[in-house]
């Protein structure tokens, strides 16, 4: 049986879609069979981040309504044989899908794939309820900002209420220069406030913007964010990987600085 993981945050724009895409690519790279699902009906994005937007024929709603078979809607990734995308519908709204239907769909996929990753829409309404319905594990993405952390806390409360017990935290867009000045909360600060298991911390890396412009994953690139995502994937697979010390990465900072 595969593991069904929802990637969620409450607040929009903190990096859910980028995180979903990169964890999907990373797990596939490590040899796992992976499906990533865009559950944001009406605001499809995961296809663009993965560079697969021109290959969409059918979507999530088509599968649920029985307009096509699952196999017809799954888009094979450009680089990885064992990575598939189930895109969202651009013309439907949240009410086109119910939590029960999503649960059935993820159960079906879990029979064949090792990991099913659900990219959750922002908010706590029906889109969120749909995305978490079939999940047994959640990854909360947040940034070191008051608004994002507040939303993450509410989301964690809602997940606990919905009996999702395995909850991991990813802290995105950390700027060590600001942390050092005391102008940005540190990984330790955020983890302490939210009191959930830390799965990974990502630096605010411009390579992510460059990768997204090109529809490529950042995980293949020689970048801090890419390495951090790969470590997240290894931890998900049960490996104990030490956390990158974003503080003492002088070598890499120096290298980046020098290459400019």
């Amino acid at each position, binding site marked *: 049986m595969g593991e069904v993981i929802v990637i969620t945050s409450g607040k929009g724009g903190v990096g859910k879609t980028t995180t979903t895409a990169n964890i999907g690519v990373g797990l596939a790279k490590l040899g796992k069979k992976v499906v990533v699902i865009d559950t944001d009906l009406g605001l499809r994005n995961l296809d663009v981040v993965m560079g697969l937007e021109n290959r969409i024929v059918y979507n999530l709603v088509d599968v649920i309504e029985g307009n096509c078979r699952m196999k017809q809607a799954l888009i094979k990734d450009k680089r990885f044989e064992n990575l598939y995308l189930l895109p969202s519908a651009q013309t439907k709204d949240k009410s086109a899908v119910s939590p029960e239907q999503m649960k059935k769909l993820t159960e079906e996929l879990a029979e064949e794939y090792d990991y099913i990753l659900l990219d959750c829409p922002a908010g706590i309404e029906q889109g969120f309820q749909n995305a978490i319905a079939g999940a047994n594990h959640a990854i909360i993405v947040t940034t070191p900002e*008051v608004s994002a952390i*507040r939303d993450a806390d509410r989301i964690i409360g809602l997940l606990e209420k919905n009996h999702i017990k395995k909850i991991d935290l990813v802290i995105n867009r950390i700027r060590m220069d600001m942390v050092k000045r*005391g*102008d940005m*909360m540190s990984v330790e600060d955020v983890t302490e*406030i939210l*009191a959930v298991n830390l799965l990974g911390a990502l630096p605010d890396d411009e390579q992510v913007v460059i990768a997204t412009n090109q529809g490529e994953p950042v995980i293949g690139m020689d970048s801090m964010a890419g390495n951090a995502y790969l470590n997240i994937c290894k931890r998900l697979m049960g490996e104990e990987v030490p956390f990158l010390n974003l503080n003492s990465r002088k070598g890499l900072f120096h290298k980046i600085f020098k290459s400019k």
Partner: protein
Amino acid sequence: MKNSSVSIAKSRLKSLLVSDRVNCTPDTFDKIQSELYKTISKYIEIIPEEFDVQVTRSHIYIKLTGEDL
């Protein structure tokens, strides 16, 4: 170092999360805290400096002594 904007953010978050978690205003929470103190002090000898109420997502912890939870 800690007295720049991070400490402001952390103290704002602290009261924000408490009021989100118990669904009340910071003022109401202060009242809950002082009523709990009054009630408990009727039966148990406690001193105000060592009394603290902490709210997590699933529990309310009442600290009576100087010990950490």
